[in-house]
């Protein structure tokens, strides 16, 4: 029996945590609405004159339009390539079972546990010797590899959970392996694929160390690198930096709000995978 006191206490706790969570974000948005030449951060009182000039400043003078496009290019490429490669590999390992296939699974599991800090110097010199430094590929390829490592492992688990009857029915019908994969199996593991895409999107959009190290040309900066170099380039305009920050964070937040279940399912993966 839940007393009214328990209900109230629970609601109070929830509201308190919500306030603590949202307060920094409110400060961010409030600061972004200050005039461009403001020299201080802004509290949540919103008592200052509101202005969206900072957004225009960040977008044009601050080059955030470029940074957003760069980040989108890298992120979409990584998502697309790693999805296809991981689906193919997971299908191969779990349904076609070539001998030695499981080794790829173990390498994947270990591979995506390797921190970026560990691999980044090797990547730098690797791309330097290939002449691929300062290019989109230098930012895309390593992240594809990491996403493939994660995705192969993740989707292999998903494929493993599919009933054999799906395959049998298709084979009796004479369906090709390719068609079987893309027309039958993939739709069956669509939630797992959506979760993989959500996580790859989050991680790639958010990536910082790799683009920082391999891309020196500011015309190809991603939003993360752009933000970190903004203060040096554009003086002390807190509002412009805040506006740029909001722009940078917005896409992921919007995608998250739209597809919460995929994100949260991914984050909770640890509990369910076991």
């Amino acid at each position, binding site marked *: 029996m839940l007393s009214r006191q328990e209900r109230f206490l629970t609601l109070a706790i929830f509201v308190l945590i*919500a306030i603590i969570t949202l307060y920094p974000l409110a400060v961010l948005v409030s600061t972004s609405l200050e005039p461009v030449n403001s020299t201080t951060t802004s509290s949540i009182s919103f008592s200052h004159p509101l202005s969206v000039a900072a957004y225009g400043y960040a977008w044009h003078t601050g080059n955030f339009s470029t940074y957003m496009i760069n980040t989108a290019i890298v992120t979409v490429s990584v998502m697309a390539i790693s999805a296809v490669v991981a689906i193919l590999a997971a299908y*191969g390992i779990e349904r076609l079972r070539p001998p030695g296939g499981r080794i790829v699974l173990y390498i*994947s599991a270990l591979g995506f546990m390797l921190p970026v800090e560990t691999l980044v110097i090797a990547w730098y010199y*690797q791309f330097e010797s290939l002449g691929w430094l300062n290019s989109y590929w230098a930012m895309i390829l390593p992240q594809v*590899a990491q996403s*493939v490592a994660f995705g192969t492992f993740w989707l292999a688990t998903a494929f493993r959970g599919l009933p054999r009857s799906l395959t049998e029915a298709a084979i009796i019908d004479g369906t090709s392996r390719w068609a079987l994969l893309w027309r039958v199996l993939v739709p069956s593991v669509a939630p797992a694929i959506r979760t993989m895409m959500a996580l790859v999107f989050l991680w790639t959009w958010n990536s910082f160390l790799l683009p920082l*190290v391999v891309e020196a040309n500011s015309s190809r900066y991603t939003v993360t690198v752009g933000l970190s170099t903004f203060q040096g380039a554009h003086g002390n305009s807190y509002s412009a930096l805040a506006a740029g920050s909001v722009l940078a964070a917005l896409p992921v937040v919007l995608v998250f709000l739209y597809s919460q279940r995929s994100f949260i399912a991914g984050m909770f993966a640890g509990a369910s995978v076991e």
Partner: protein
Amino acid sequence: MSFAEGAVPSDNVGVAASGRDLGRTQGRAGRQRSVAWRRRDRAAGYLYILPAVVFLAMFIVYPLVKDIQYSFENWDGVGPATYAGFSNYAQLWRDPVESSSLAHIGELFIFFALIPVAVGLLVASLIGRVQPRGSVVFRAIFFLPQVIVTVVIAIVWTWLLAPSGAGSFNGLLHAVGLGPAVGPSWLGDFNTSLIALGLIAVWIDFGLCFLLFLSGVQKISPELYNSARLDGAGLIREFFYITVPLLRREIAAAIVITTVMALQGFTLVYTATGGGPGTSTTIPGILILRDAFDLGQVGTAAALAITLAVLVFAVTFGIRALLERKAE
């Protein structure tokens, strides 16, 4: 950004291939057909996993091997390299800055992982089975810190923890008459910088842990608590003998997820403090960059990089092993 936050390697290995399913359908002829099918399947399998193998080999395995190679060399990144044996690794232990970076990671681990897990567990168990209205909204809010770009989080918290400014905590206290116009610089003070970073880490991870444990707690049947109460168990007993054991899986997941975030806190530290002031918040990732690109000591950087990787593996597997043994 860290890649191992989400999924955790499953222990479900060694599942035997049940290749005889098809044979069941059509008797002896079916079995013969299925054997040939299996062989062709396996060959095709290699083709299907080939792209993944290429990516993994080129951009995970090869760089790792090169890293290990660099760690045994003296190299400045430009000229020729000379063999250095284990001296780079020895250097890690001798040099106080290098070794303290590993200690800092350990301290951050407490804030990224242990505190959010512990507090999340406590608060979730307090709430128990109540689902307030609008819980979907709350869920989205609690989850937000996980999906906000880390650089943005670092920037905002730099403002919140600044000595002054309308958006800072100091400024807020001052505005309500509780503090001076210019307060302490939490991130800029040797003594408080690491803890301040830890505070940010708790803000990032708490919501996730809380939601994880809430969903777990709601699966616990109230019968268990009722019968425990009838037996005279107090709140503390309830917590340690019912709640915690039954939330084993969630605790394990939370610790693994948050631990990996702790061990990869590069973005947060780099953006918020740059490793400073001095070296009070320097973590391995920052030193790796400094050693390799600023000091031209690729060997040292690589040795630290490998050590970090070993640490990540050791802690992750160690924690999972620990929690799984508790499950016995």
